[in-house]
């Protein structure tokens, strides 16, 4: 029986680190860095504080929150397709509560609560009725968008309350509040993923639910939590987006679903679950945000932008997927 020593084994492992591994780890960094260089060289405005903070960073926050929301269900091998509808619904609720009901600040926790309830609904249908999360959230994606649009009555609704707006539009030491909120939540999700039981079970469930169940965990509960968290984060995204522009249109938040999934996967969280984490999701978000901004500055035709974005996403995912862990690609 061959029993090579542990040190040999470690050497084996090191030697087995292939170019592919390095590309996987560094791919999104390289891509982000490359894009930054290209746009810095080709445009005058890209690499200016005003552009980076006010355009790239601020615009990235909504996508960041939605992508972080989507990361946890994907980590546990489910998926939440309803994210952008939750943003729409909670955004609309925020405006209505402030403008029609005059609830002021109280509108914010209520709107976020609506987001969490939406997530809870997704999670309950998924676990208790055993409907695949893909289908549940595909359904609620449509249902909640419809509800949100009905509330708006089909046109943009607005509110006027500058003190509430300041939560999203103010600055601290020259850094936009919006960006600070994004960073704060980003850090919080990292803590959730790596320092809590919830995060641990997300990874574990994503790899093999049976193993987690036989280890004595209350599996259903931990399968629902990621959806509630997703609702919470999308609720925050909806509120911040609404406060920023003090209005909610019937298609607020739309168009974020696919880029958010692309950002998650680019960041290294596999759709097959169990690997990755929110810490790297931000890379994918920045790649997309920089690309969008740079192409705008270069005045690339918006239809052409769609094509380029799609190609970059496929390329980034192709480079970053860990194929060793995937037997069959479907």
């Amino acid at each position, binding site marked *: 029986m061959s029993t090579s020593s542990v040190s040999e084994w470690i050497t084996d*492992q090191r030697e087995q680190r292939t170019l592919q591994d390095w590309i996987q780890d560094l791919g999104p960094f390289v891509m982000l860095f490359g894009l930054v260089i290209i746009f810095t060289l080709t445009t005058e405005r890209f690499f200016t504080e005003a552009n980076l903070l006010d355009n790239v960073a601020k615009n990235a926050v909504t996508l960041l929150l939605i992508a972080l929301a989507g990361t946890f269900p994907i980590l546990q091998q489910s998926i939440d397709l309803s994210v952008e509808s939750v943003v729409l619904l909670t955004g609309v609720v925020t405006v209505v509560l402030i403008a029609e009901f005059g609830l002021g600040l109280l509108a914010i926790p209520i709107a976020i609560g609506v987001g969490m309830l939406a997530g809870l609904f997704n999670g309950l249908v998924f676990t208790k009725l055993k409907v695949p999360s893909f289908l549940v959230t595909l359904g609620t994606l449509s249902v909640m968008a419809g509800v949100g649009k009905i509330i708006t009555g089909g046109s943009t609704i607005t509110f006027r309350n500058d003190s509430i707006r300041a939560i999203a539009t103010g600055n601290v030491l020259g850094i936009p509040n919006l960006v600070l909120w994004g960073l704060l939540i980003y850090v919080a999700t990292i803590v959730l993923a790596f320092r809590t039981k919830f995060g*641990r079970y997300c990874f574990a469930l994503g790899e093999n639910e049976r193993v987690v169940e036989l*280890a004595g965990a209350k599996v259903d509960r931990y399968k629902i939590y990621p959806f509630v968290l997703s609702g919470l984060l999308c609720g925050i995204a909806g509120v911040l987006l609404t406060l920023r522009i003090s209005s909610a249109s019937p298609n607020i938040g739309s168009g974020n679903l696919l880029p958010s999934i692309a950002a998650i996967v680019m960041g290294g969280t596999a759709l097959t679950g169990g690997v990755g984490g929110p810490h790297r999701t931000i890379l994918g978000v920045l790649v997309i945000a920089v690309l969008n901004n740079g192409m705008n500055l270069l005045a690339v035709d918006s239809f052409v932008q769609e094509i380029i974005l799609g190609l970059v996403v496929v390329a980034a995912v192709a480079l970053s997927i860990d194929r060793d862990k995937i037997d069959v690609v479907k």
Partner: protein
Amino acid sequence: MSSETHANTTDAPPDAAPDSTSSFRVEGISKSFGHVQALDEVSLEVNRGEVIGLVGENGAGKSTLLNILTGVLEADEGQLYVDGDPVAFTNPREAADYGVSLVHQEQDVITTLRGYENLHLGREKERLGVLEMESMREAAQAFVDDLGINIDVDDRVREYTFNERQMLEIAKAFHVSQKSDNPVILLDEPTAGLEESGREILFDLVNDLRDRATFVFVSHELDEVLEISDRIYVLKDGERVDMTRVEDATTDSLQQSMVGRETADEYYRVPDQRREAQLGEVTMEVDSVAHEDVVGPASFSLREGEIFGIVGVEGSGKQRFGRLLAGDLAMTEGSMTVDGTELTNPSVSDMVDAGVGYIPKDRKSEGLLLYQSVLVNTSLAMVRDMNGSMPMLDLDAEQEATTNAIEELSIKTPGPNALVHGLSGGNQQKVVIARWLAQETPILVMDNVTRGIDVGAKEEVYRLCRELTDRGVSIVFIGDELPEVIGMSNRIGVMAKGQFVAEPFDASPGNKPTEEDLIQEMI
């Protein structure tokens, strides 16, 4: 390795057929998976018209050998010859082109398709891209009729009986190896799911087709192997330890070759077994528990520091009974008392709370998160109770528990953060055990805890079980391998049709039942 005791039989005896007439031959095949040497220089030859038996314990290398013969796996070393010419297969299709094909243990047919569609699967007849259904159907019926197989190829396979599906599989094996004038059909445990009558049909078919193909018959049932084979190869721990003509073999002699190692007492550390007087109070009382009318009602009690073995044939319900004890199968009747707490229809979570940990038979699909670290796997049960109901992990406690487990169980890993995937089977299994050790679980339900791990690792697991019982841990030891259960247990319950058939056997040192004693009750 104790191969020296069998060294005389490793070389082909003079009465083996000379190479010139052998239709299929492999020489010096070796294959290892990570640390485990699955096959070590195995040679085998198959002559025209022969039925070859291939036996060995679980993990002896039979499946690996079959996979190499059919091109599913590539050998590290060694050479295959067909009609004396060296060949190399890289996939089952190439193997089939040379006449070698496998009839799978778990039936490999698509039940929603018709018989003839299955027969032609992957080799459909088509004209201009359109399937020629009628021509395929006729050809298929003629093909099976010619083989003397009595099935209607126009029926959907889900309407076939178990037996008919197997017949279809055998027909398929002949069909794919049509290019060869002397097919080699490998039958992997073909009698596993068959009734007595089905077995007769199978054996009749094999005997009828002897002059048209060579069969390699892999089975755990030694009497069946003796009935059907002309020659028998014995594998043990990846080595070919015996090759014998059927006239010279008995079940006992085969058994001896398959197990052939140091005395059972030493191997299972029987002298370290706790004596009756050393056992503590009853810690688990199982009172007529049942799952619908599939398992149970069954009762037994387990004392502190005791190993209670459970044996039974495949389908006896022993595995499900283990799941019932673990809370993984609904307890529709009866109750359990663990350490004074009564449980009715507990969940797995309830059982873990009560102090019962379950080690499943299939560690890869149910025991381990293969792509997570040793640490994550080790602490998977203990994280539940960290910081009470607070959500935060206790990273220091995890680290400490993992480091301790690595040391105590001598788990060979580059460190706590290495992925479990890279460890050998034995070390992986130790990680599963470490999970309950870290949680200080007092009662373990083990289902075939040494399945598929090498001999050295098995011995370590046996040692570990002894040490655990010394600390007062009680073990329910469910096993397919009788010598192991006999060697390890204090008492042994024999299960059939989901129930214990008699009072448990006493298996204290010096008073162990024989395999025959148990088998008589099992059947």
